[in-house]
């Protein structure tokens, strides 16, 4: 160690440095960090926020955000800004779905991207392609400038996602409220029969296209237990589009769904019930997010975990494998869960490997019984 021109050597100086360094690092250990920040910073307000139409966001703010959207949209006869969109629909089958998420991270741009991918999950799970989108946004009472920035970011981020999938935002509603909430209603199309929960066959392989654990990671963040790296990795997975995977899988699966709030177990159970098959999971093969098992072993659970477990109450829950709680972890923007007949499984597996999923086959369906074992 050197202090100007003075030199110190040996174990004692190292102890001093060790103490200084450890004390420095200790300052940055933050616990229960998210609880306080989830309470959105409000500008001091004398009057309660009006509901109903009073909660609408000012025209100027909205106009600036919508300005960037395309003026002419396929399947739409008028322009954005009219009372309602006039749409005409192609021949074939249409699927229609909606989803929204409450604020779970500090960056509205990421929030919006994740919500868009999350909402698209239902369209992809049906083996269809998205066409038209309506947005529903609640933004907290911020300064006019911040409202504008938030909205610009949200619309821009979602528009990028939808545009890439060939869909367009054609309208929506934006209001002010207690916390940031983003939602999308999506109309999709397919020339074939949409893929449903019904159709899984005895002998089909079960595949999952994203790792489990987003619920546990986000719960861990709120309790100050999740590492930044884990959170960022979870965000990256949640922002991953599954459009390509869905297109590829469309003519190779017997049934398909996306894993969201009910967790893998709940959504798999729905396939089993609809298709009258049982599932045998190879629990060790199920991909999970980095950090999810660490947090799970510490007892971290999402608030919906108990509900999901209760849904399965008549089943025998096997808790031998330490990964079991992950099966009931609610997923945000989770993976596609599908039944793939044997003749396609090799092709599916190698394609998913190219797309970055080393493990995608997580089990098999067997005849009758509608049970899940692992």
């Amino acid at each position, binding site marked *: 160690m*050197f202090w100007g021109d003075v030199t110190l050597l040996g174990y004692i100086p190292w102890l001093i440095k060790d103490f200084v360094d450890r004390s420095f690092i200790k300052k*940055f250990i933050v616990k229960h960090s998210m609880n306080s920040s989830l309470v959105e910073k409000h500008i001091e307000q004398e009057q309660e926020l009006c509901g109903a139409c009073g909660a609408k966001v000012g025209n100027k703010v909205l106009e600036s955000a919508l300005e960037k959207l395309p003026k002419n949209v396929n399947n739409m006869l008028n322009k954005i800004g009219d009372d309602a969109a006039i749409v005409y629909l192609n021949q074939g089958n249409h699927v229609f779905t909606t989803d929204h998420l409450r604020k779970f991270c500090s960056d509205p741009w990421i929030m919006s991207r994740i919500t868009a991918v999350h909402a698209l999950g239902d369209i992809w799970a049906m083996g269809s392609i998205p066409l038209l989108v309506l947005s529903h946004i609640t933004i907290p009472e911020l300064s006019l400038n911040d409202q504008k920035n938030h909205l610009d970011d949200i619309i821009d981020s979602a528009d990028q996602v939808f545009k890439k999938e060939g869909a367009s935002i054609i309208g929506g509603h934006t209001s002010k409220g207690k916390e940031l909430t983003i939602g999308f209603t999506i109309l999709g199309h397919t020339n074939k029969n949409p893929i449903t929960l019904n159709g899984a066959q005895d002998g089909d392989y079960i595949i999952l296209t994203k790792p489990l654990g987003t619920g546990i990671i986000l719960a861990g963040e709120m309790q100050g237990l999740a590492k930044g*790296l884990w959170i960022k990795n979870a965000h990256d997975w949640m922002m991953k589009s599954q459009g390509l995977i869905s297109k590829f899988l469309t003519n190779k699966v017997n049934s398909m769904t996306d894993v969201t709030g009910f967790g893998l177990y709940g959504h798999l159970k729905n396939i089993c019930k609809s298709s009258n098959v049982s599932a045998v999971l190879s629990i060790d093969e199920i991909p999970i997010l980095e950090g999810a098992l660490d947090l799970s072993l510490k007892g971290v659970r999402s608030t919906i975990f108990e509900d999901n477990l209760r849904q399965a109450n008549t089943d025998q829950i096997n808790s031998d494998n330490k990964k079991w709680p992950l099966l009931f972890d609610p997923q945000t923007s989770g993976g596609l869960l599908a039944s793939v007949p044997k003749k396609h499984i090799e092709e599916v597996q190698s394609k998913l490997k190219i797309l970055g999923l080393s493990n995608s086959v997580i089990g098999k369906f067997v005849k009758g019984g509608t049970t899940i074992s692992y």
Partner: protein
Amino acid sequence: MAEKKLVLIGGGHSHILLLKKLGMKPIKGLNITLITPEPELVYTGMLPAAILGSYSFDQINIDLIKLSNFAKCRIIFEAVNKINLNKKEIYLDDRIPFGFDILSIDIGINYQLPNISGAEKFSIPVKPFSNFIHNWRKFVSNLTIKKNIIELSIVGAGAAGCELALCINHKIKSLGREPKIYLIDKKEIAGNLPAKAKNKILELLKENKIILRNNINISSIAKGKIHIEDSEIISSDLILSAAGGKPHNWLSETDLNLKNGFVSINQSLQSISHDFVFASGDCASIINFPTQKAGVFAVRAAPFLYQNIQNYVIKKTIKKVQSSEKIFTSINY
């Protein structure tokens, strides 16, 4: 009062301390965003000890997401590569321009690989640390039992290079192998340290049988080989680069007044050309106030940064940084 938008570029040592303070004592009317490519900051003071194994790599990381949540700060994972100071906008890949009222820059130094053919492909730079740590871990875990002598080269023999050489030497020995470490520089060894410290380090390097190759030029780097002036080849199992850090390029594309590529700031940590831009740590140079580039200055700047940003928001007179010329340098091995 309208809210002011403060954007912090870079999660360096000044900014983490600033965020901690902002979390404990929020400044009213300030909306904060941190833009950083990585969710963790490696605390450089503990890096050498982590290489040795005195600390786990987890112990030396500062979690920027937790800290941002604590400071009610929005965090964006992007690398800034362009700003417009007239429009007060930051440009990020994929995103619409990001506006600000007050800017604080703490992006450190860009450790560039030396401009030598093969350097990019066959040597590992010490920065970004997260990447370096990852590669070092991989190297250590891949050491085969058969190989007894481990040859390593470090390009760049500043304080960082010397420290790294001593650390790695110790670590390889602790693994029961025989280290053979080359420390290579086109100039002097430890040339940037005070005379007494330099002599002591030279003594230590000698004691530890580090092979010093100073005042030589590397002509090219190949897989496991360093070619010296076309006459000599140094073979190495791993080639590390601790060669001279350079200021980030994008700074020179702004209107900011720079000195040797670093943001020129006054003693209040404000850019001398733009008073709404603060800068601290290695990316800044205080005009007419000689200081070395060292993490300790970034740490010391933080309370002043907090105070001066607050004063700027409420339009009060700005405080000056007081600093002692002596700094505490520590070489661990």
